[in-house]
């Protein structure tokens, strides 16, 4: 572990790195929060269209993906615990599991999008949902693609970070003396999971109950 010269001790460096990740996640809250806020405004204005559009989302894929992500968070959290104990092998395995689950999520998302596009649910000319509030339904899907797209980008970054941790675990870089990167990536991964839970509630659930 390379201690940078501006820190007075390894603990100081570790604390600083964690503080940085928390602050970064706060900015992400503002980013996604802005999106959620607009969503809520439009849902209020276009209740009919949003309800119609929600019916066309795939609850099966959405719920499956939610379970996958929750499982992946569990896996990585266990990995963080392993890192604290210096258990490289477990950390490696759990990181690979996490990354694999993340990739499954992305693949399923791709499948879902393909289905949506085939069903003429991508906004624009030829949009498939009609009715009295077709505009509202189209707005729903605009948000759907923007929000899930942005989330998928965050997921890809997350998978890359988890694989980086796996690589570090293989080279036995982490242990009780220093496992800050594992903690930091763990925070990020849990956050991306949390964002998904909110998205799932808004996209798949809230119009159906």
């Amino acid at each position, binding site marked *: 572990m390379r201690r940078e010269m*501006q820190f007075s001790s390894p603990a100081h460096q570790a604390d600083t790195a964690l503080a940085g990740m928390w602050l970064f996640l706060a*900015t992400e809250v503002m*980013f996604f929060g802005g999106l959620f806020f*607009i969503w809520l405004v439009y849902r209020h204005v276009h209740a009919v*269209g949003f309800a119609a559009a929600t019916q066309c989302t795939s609850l099966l894929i959405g719920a499956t993906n939610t379970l996958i992500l929750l499982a992946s968070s569990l896996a990585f959290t266990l990995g963080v615990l392993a890192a604290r104990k210096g258990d490289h092998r477990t950390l490696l395995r759990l990181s690979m599991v996490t990354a694999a689950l993340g990739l499954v999520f992305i693949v399923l998302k791709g499948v879902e999008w393909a289905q949506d596009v085939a069903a003429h649910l991508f906004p624009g000319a030829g949009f498939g949902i009609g009715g009295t509030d077709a505009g*509202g339904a189209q*707005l729903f899907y*605009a948000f759907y693609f*923007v929000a899930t797209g942005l989330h998928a980008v965050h997921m890809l970054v997350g998978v890359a970070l988890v694989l980086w941790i796996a690589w570090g675990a293989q080279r036995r870089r982490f242990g009780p003396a220093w496992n800050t990167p594992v903690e930091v990536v763990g925070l990020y991964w849990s956050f991306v999971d949390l964002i998904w839970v909110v998205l799932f509630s808004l996209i798949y659930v809230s119009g159906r109950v």
Partner: protein
Amino acid sequence: MSATLERNYLTEQWTLRSWLLTTDHKRIALLYFASITVFFFLGGAAAALIRLHLILPQGALLSHEMYNRVFTMHGVVMVWFFLVPAVPVTLGNFIVPLMLGARDLAFPRLNLFSWYLFMAGGIVGVAALFWGGVDTGWTFYTPLATDYARGHVVMVVVGIFISGFSSIATGLNFIITIHMLRAPGLRWFRLPIFIWTIYATSIILVLATPVLAITLALLAFERIFHVGVFDPALGGDPLLFQHLFWFYSHPAVYIMILPGMGIVSEIIPAFARREIFGYKFIIWSTVAIAVIGFFVWGHHMFVAGTSLYSSIVFSLLSYAVAVPSAIKVFNWIGTLHKGSIHFDAPMLYALGFVGLFTIGGLTGLFVAALAADVHLTQTYFVVAHFHYIMVGGMVSAFFGGVHYWWPKITGRMYPEMWGRMAALLIFFGFNLTFFPQFLLGMQGMPRRYASYPPEFQVLNVLSSAGATILAAAYLLPLGYFTWSLFRGARAPANPWGATGLEWTMPSPPPTENFATTPVVTERPYAYPPPGAEPTHAP
């Protein structure tokens, strides 16, 4: 060149690689200085074109479409590639660790990455503006920007989006640094005010910029896929765009001005040789501006079709946010009282700031008054108002800070007489350029007009004359600063006799700043009583 060349951060290594891959906050600050200067002159060239064009009522130089592209470029470049980053990434990067007694920022590699992000965003944005141009104004109102404007709107927006990440990373770096890397003994209420203003600025940067990011992302999505997020014809709401846009862009103006206020709070005590008046009140005012500034965005929309009740609330809050700024002005003036005042260039810029910022701020009260805003909004009155604060205020403070810390950064003194002349010329040229615009606005001349009714010509010509003087005045520092790098007198560690940890370092500092971490026991601005004068470098 002196025979005994010390080892410092400049002389450490000279290769291009050592500059482009540096993680030293001081070198990164210089990289940013270069970028910022280029963008400033780019935006300034656009301004020159605008003022030249407007000397004739029918327009002297450009077609309507070209003019619209030029003022859009001026706004986009000046706001996102100059004003928002300027002080934090140059003076902030260089001075903050030194003021804190730290060896670098918390995340030096992130700092370097921020510069690359900034350059990428700036290049993409400027390329779009040149290659075909964008004519929506820097505010990108919908549905004009999404469905009607031709040009590379998406490309510009992508450029701004990328540079936004640079802003967030910079802000994050400063916040964590100020929390975690203060020298022992540097309690929060011993910190120089510049640190407090950088901190407040960084809070706004990290909280507001993501909202801009999502707004621009939706704008691009709508433009590419013709979806109606903001387009009423497709079920969207154009006012929603305005709310989201101003939710970022109003706090953004506090990002621009707070560091300037911090610089002035360092310069005035140093050149009045006494401690600052009302240290804690200035700090609380800084925090108040940052917080209240998030809740006034609706004052950009008083005639936009928002509800009466929301407008009343936004007007009240806009008056509230002006109070802490007034408190600061009174405190700076209080610092002059019973001081021992020197008129070096930094002080001239600081005094100019106080005067011009006060004018700008007071004229803000005109547009904050609901009924008066109906007449004054969207006219040259608003243009004058914000230029008094941004250019008269912020740019003056920036120049003041550059002059003040130039000896520390470069190890050279700039020629003082030229510095003072430029400061005075800038003050004069600035007022001649922008004061007539208050009058134009009261008369009703709208902004963003490529041509105008003839009765407005005289004031336009006066303004353009001022702009010529201002342009020349801004070129002067470019000249004498460059000269000073080769021929300026060598600067001692503390040419101004100022307080603050940065002045305990040699000029220029060594790469690692402090060999041993200092311990701070004194209050800030602990100037000796008037009479104990320092010796300035010649």
